[in-house]
Each structure stands twice: as structure tokens, then as C-alpha cells.
């Protein structure tokens, strides 16, 4: 599969930090700016260059320049109509060629559906170590290696993982686990455009179409999430939570129990087996706070919990807790929020 002699793991010959920009259609997704923020820190700690790799088609020059304004020293834009939408084989093949040519020491991507597919596929081809879903990345001061930190075992613990010899050191990073890199006026950098050869663009997969469904991503983008757990009792009662969410302009999240019972769809699920969210405000209603749920929301800026059981683990992560009957508290809260918002 790969010529092992070509990829001797001589860590010395690798240099530079790369982020893989996330492309949505013909635009750069803003999760890429979070990667730039991570990448910039790593590149500075290594006193090396930060490059943003963009695989896509007809991306505006101004979008590529924005990557530089937000911290990239170099943008490598691989352009082809076959790269307009993500398909694992051409994306992986193009990146593998780039890695062989430029030999970056670090490659990070977002832990999105694209990154979580492409990175493990590519890591095998490149014989590179890969850590999934990191929440923190640092440079080890002694070795200069990448410390990849991620929640493990139901989010109970944080594991620090290293890639001792294989290069590049690869990691996917949880979206919303850091702030996007800000625009800086006057930053300059180089834009390299590459037209990949046809043999890298072959795919056994064909994308036939797309059905938009905004409900699948709204909870990860929401500033406020009102989340509901088993304490709500049945599907009909979810209405009272929806009313509060409506009053707050919030998205609706759910615990695994609620989704498993079919009271809300899977796109609403927060937790390790659902989505990780970092909203400004998370209101947990009737959620006891199983470890797997806490792992998906404990980085929210402000957490409010409403639950009958004073011992519920959700209170251990809450900034403000109300112990009591949600069926009394939530409608009264909704009313007060509506009044406050009118003013």
C-alpha cells in the first residue's frame, strides 16, 4: 500500500503545522477558524509555520485571504470540481500526496463528519498516529511532540496521548472547544494553488444529491440550549420545554433516555453518544446527569439545572440549581422570560 522506505519515521525531517480547513459547499466553514486558533498556538510553540490546507472548488480568493488574516502563514488550495463535496478517496489521496511532498509534523482537522471520516482513512495510508476528538492540544516542552488531550472512559477522565515516532502527528479537534481565531489586519501570507492530477481524484463513491435538514446541526450552533431528560415523563410534556426554548430563542437538547424512548430525534441528543455542545447557556430540565451526558455539555459557559432530586449529579456541574417540580417551575419561568424579553 505504501512504500515504507519512503516514510521512514524520521521525526527530524518533518516540520510545520497544518490545519485542514473545513469546506461547506464553496465556502470555508467557521470551524476552520477554531483550528487556526489551535494551530497558531502550536506553530508558535514550535517556532514554525502554520499552513491551512483547503480542498475544494471555486473558493473565493477573499475566503483564502481570511485564513491568512486569522493566523495562517500559508494557504495550500487544492482545487478540482471532484473536490467540491467530500468523498473519502480523492480527499485522502490528495492529502497523502501533500504530506509526502511537504512533510508537516502536525496535521489537525475538525472532529466533524468529514474530519472524523477523512482523518482515520488518511492516517492508515500515511501510517500516522491519530487521536480523535481532542479538547486540548499542547506542545511538550521537552520533546517538542504534540500532547493530544481528550476525554476518555465516559468523560470521567482526560487522557493525554502522544505519537512517539510516526509523523505527521494527527488529531481531530472537537468543534466549539475553543474560540475562533480573530481577524488581524495587515497579516500577510502566501497562497499556493494546486491542480491535482486525475489519478488522485478517482472515487468508487458518487454523491447523487443532498437533502438539507437544519435540525440536525442547530444544537451545536446554538447560543442557548434548553435540554430535557427523562424527568419530563412522556413525549406530550415536552411541549412545556419547547415553550421555554421558544421564549429564549433556544435550541432543544435531549438526554440519551429521551432519544432512546423516541420522545425526541437523535439530532437533539447531547452527550458522548450524541453531540458535544458549548453554548453560552445550558438549561438542563429533568436531566439527572449521567456521566455520558455531562461529558457532552459540561463546557457550557453557564449551566442551570432544574431537577427534583437534590442528589442528581447534574447539580455538580451547574452554576445555578433549582430543586423542585419541573412542571411547576418551567411554565412559571417561561412566563417570566417572556416578560423580561418584552422590555
Amino acid at each position, binding site marked *: 500500500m505504501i512504500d515504507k522506505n519512503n516514510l521512514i519515521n524520521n521525526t527530524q525531517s518533518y516540520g510545520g503545522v497544518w490545519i485542514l480547513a473545513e469546506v461547506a459547499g464553496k465556502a470555508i466553514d467557521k470551524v476552520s477558524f477554531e483550528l487556526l486558533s489551535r494551530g497558531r498556538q502550536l506553530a508558535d510553540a514550535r517556532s514554525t509555520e502554520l499552513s491551512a490546507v483547503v480542498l475544494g472548488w471555486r473558493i473565493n480568493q477573499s475566503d483564502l485571504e481570511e485564513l491568512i488574516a486569522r493566523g495562517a502563514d500559508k494557504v495550500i488550495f487544492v482545487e478540482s470540481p471532484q473536490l467540491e463535496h467530500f468523498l473519502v478517496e480523492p480527499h485522502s489521496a490528495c492529502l497523502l500526496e501533500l504530506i509526502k511532498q511537504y512533510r508537516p509534523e502536525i496535521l489537525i482537522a475538525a472532529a466533524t463528519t468529514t474530519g472524523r471520516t477523512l482523518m482515520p482513512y488518511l492516517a492508515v495510508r500515511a*501510517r500516522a498516529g491519530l487521536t480523535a476528538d481532542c479538547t486540548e492540544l499542547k506542545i511538550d516542552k521537552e520533546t517538542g511532540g504534540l500532547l493530544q488531550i481528550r476525554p476518555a472512559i465516559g468523560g470521567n477522565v482526560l487522557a493525554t496521548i502522544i505519537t512517539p515516532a510516526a509523523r505527521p502527528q494527527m488529531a481531530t479537534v472537537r468543534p466549539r472547544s475553543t474560540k475562533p481565531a480573530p481577524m488581524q489586519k495587515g497579516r500577510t501570507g502566501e497562497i499556493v494553488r494546486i491542480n491535482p492530477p486525475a489519478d488522485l481524484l478517482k472515487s468508487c463513491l458518487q454523491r447523487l444529491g443532498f437533502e438539507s435538514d437544519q435540525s440536525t446541526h442547530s444544537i451545536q450552533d446554538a447560543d442557548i440550549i434548553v435540554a430535557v431528560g427523562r424527568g419530563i415523563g412522556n413525549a406530550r410534556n415536552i411541549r412545556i420545554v419547547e415553550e421555554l426554548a421558544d421564549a429564549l430563542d433556544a435550541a432543544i437538547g435531549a438526554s440519551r433516555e429521551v432519544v432512546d424512548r423516541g420522545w425526541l430525534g437523535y439530532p437533539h441528543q447531547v452527550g458522548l453518544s450524541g453531540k458535544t455542545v458549548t453554548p453560552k447557556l445550558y438549561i438542563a430540565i429533568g436531566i439527572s446527569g449521567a456521566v455520558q451526558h455531562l461529558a457532552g455539555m459540561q463546557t457550557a459557559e453557564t449551566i442551570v439545572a432544574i431537577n427534583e432530586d437534590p442528589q442528581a449529579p447534574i447539580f455538580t456541574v451547574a452554576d445555578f440549581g433549582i*430543586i423542585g417540580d419541573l412542571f411547576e*417551575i418551567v411554565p412559571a419561568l417561561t412566563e417570566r422570560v417572556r416578560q423580561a424579553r418584552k422590555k
Partner: protein
Amino acid sequence: MPIFKERSTKNSSGKWVNDKNIAMRIIVPIKQVPSSDDVQLDPQTGTLIRQGVEAIVNPLDLYAIETALSIRDKHGGEIIVISMGPAQAAEALREAISMGADEAVLLCDSVFAGSDTYATAYVLSTAIKRLGEYDLIICGERATDGETGQVGPGIASFLNLPVITYVSKIDELIENHRKQSKHPEGIRVHRLIETGYEIIKADLPVVLTVVKEIAIPRLPTLAGKIRARNLQIPIWSASDLGIEKNQVGLTGSLTKVVKIHKPCIVRKSEKITVENELSRQEAINRLISILQDKLLL
């Protein structure tokens, strides 16, 4: 070495080929995991307390098994479940059999212990090569213990096959009408991404990873349980697979866990107990003022 000789035969070029009576051959790699919510951390040593923790089939793998079963229900064929793990992981394979899978293979060797996702995908893909021809490999989205989701795409990469991840619906299996063959040659699926659903077509064989939305896993049947109890599950070791010791386990892994620590969550927690109308008003007033202070209203 039992490699299902009764169903597959080698052709003149030494390749395993299916008996033509079998419509589909589907491989489902599964993992045995601790039932996650029970895992506790030893506060003194920071290590995991595994004693007394129940082991189950990775809940997300049940959707992969169900997907394979419903394809077989429609098109016929056989389902082979494989798992890499300690001897007791045979129990996970038996559960898949009791749901209706046909055959199982356990990949068990002390040298496999400590494998990262790269080494794990290597072992599983090597075993899959040994199983002969197949049409589909169906994986769960990820395991609830490791939570990486890297092994499915890794297997595909080692096998030089494409992978479609986050499959939420099997639209159809595509037969080749020109060849007048009933054996499906392609598949069309829905794939759940952040903004909606992609519709993807692939030639077979292909690797799929499936999400919860795809199906509701069926329960084991009594007949299935009896079959599972009596089934001889072949165990393949590293040497059976022609795998060198240094290619797997801790030495064959490219990543290494160097530290485990407990995250400290620092939150100034404030709690109000609501017992009557008055305390309810008080709690709500306090909450509203907190939200206003933080500019959330």
C-alpha cells in the same frame, strides 16, 4: 482452520469466492464494552475500577447488526460477526448470533492487548481478508468506551475500499440488470451530516458505518439464543492471521496514552430548593437576574 469452507471455496487463482446460492455476504465487526455509565475511577490511583462492571455489546454496534439482518431479510445471504478482544468477548459474538447473525469469529491473542485504533483496524482488516469475498462491511458509528469512531474508516483504508460513514438509511441495493444477476453490485444510502443528508451511491464491496437513526435493533429470539449457546466460535490468534507481534498491541500502536487525569470542574454552585409558591418565585427571580447579568436575556 475453519474458514467457512462449506460455503466458500478457493478458485484456481487462490481467491476465496462465494457459493453463488448466497446472495449477500456481510461482515459486521463488533466490540465488547463495559456498560459505560457504571465505570468508576479509583480516586487514589486514578485507574479504572473494572471489577464488577458488566460487559455488553457496544450499543452502537447493535444498529450495524440490525442493518445487516434487515438486508439479509430482503436479499438473503449470510452475516459474519467478528470481534477482537479477550476470551470473554465471545459473549458479545453470541449475542449477535442470538439476534440472527450466522457465523462468528473471535480474534483473541494476548499480543493484541493495548492496540490503538491503527493496530486494531489492522488486525480486523487482516481477519476480514481471511474470510474471503464479501459484499458489505457494516460497523457501528463508534464504540461507547473508546469513543473514537476511527476503526471503521481504518478498516476500509487497510482493505483499500471506500467508506461511507454516518449512514442513516439504506435506500436500495442495486442489481446489475445487464448481467441478469440477482447478486447486488451497488448500494445507495443516505448519510447524516451536520447540515442534512447526502445521498451516496457506491459499488460493492464497500464499508459502511451506521448511526442510530438507521433502524431499531431487534431483540434476540429464543431459537437464536439456543443456537448462540451451542455454536462453536473459531478463535484466531496473531499467528493464525500471519501477524507479527511487533505489528500489534502497544508496540504496533502509533499513539500512546501517557497520562490519565481527572478533569477538575470549578463552578461556584448555587442551589435553591422550591417547596412552595414563595420559594418558587425567589428561585425564578434569582435565575432571571443571573441571566440578565450575563446578558443572556
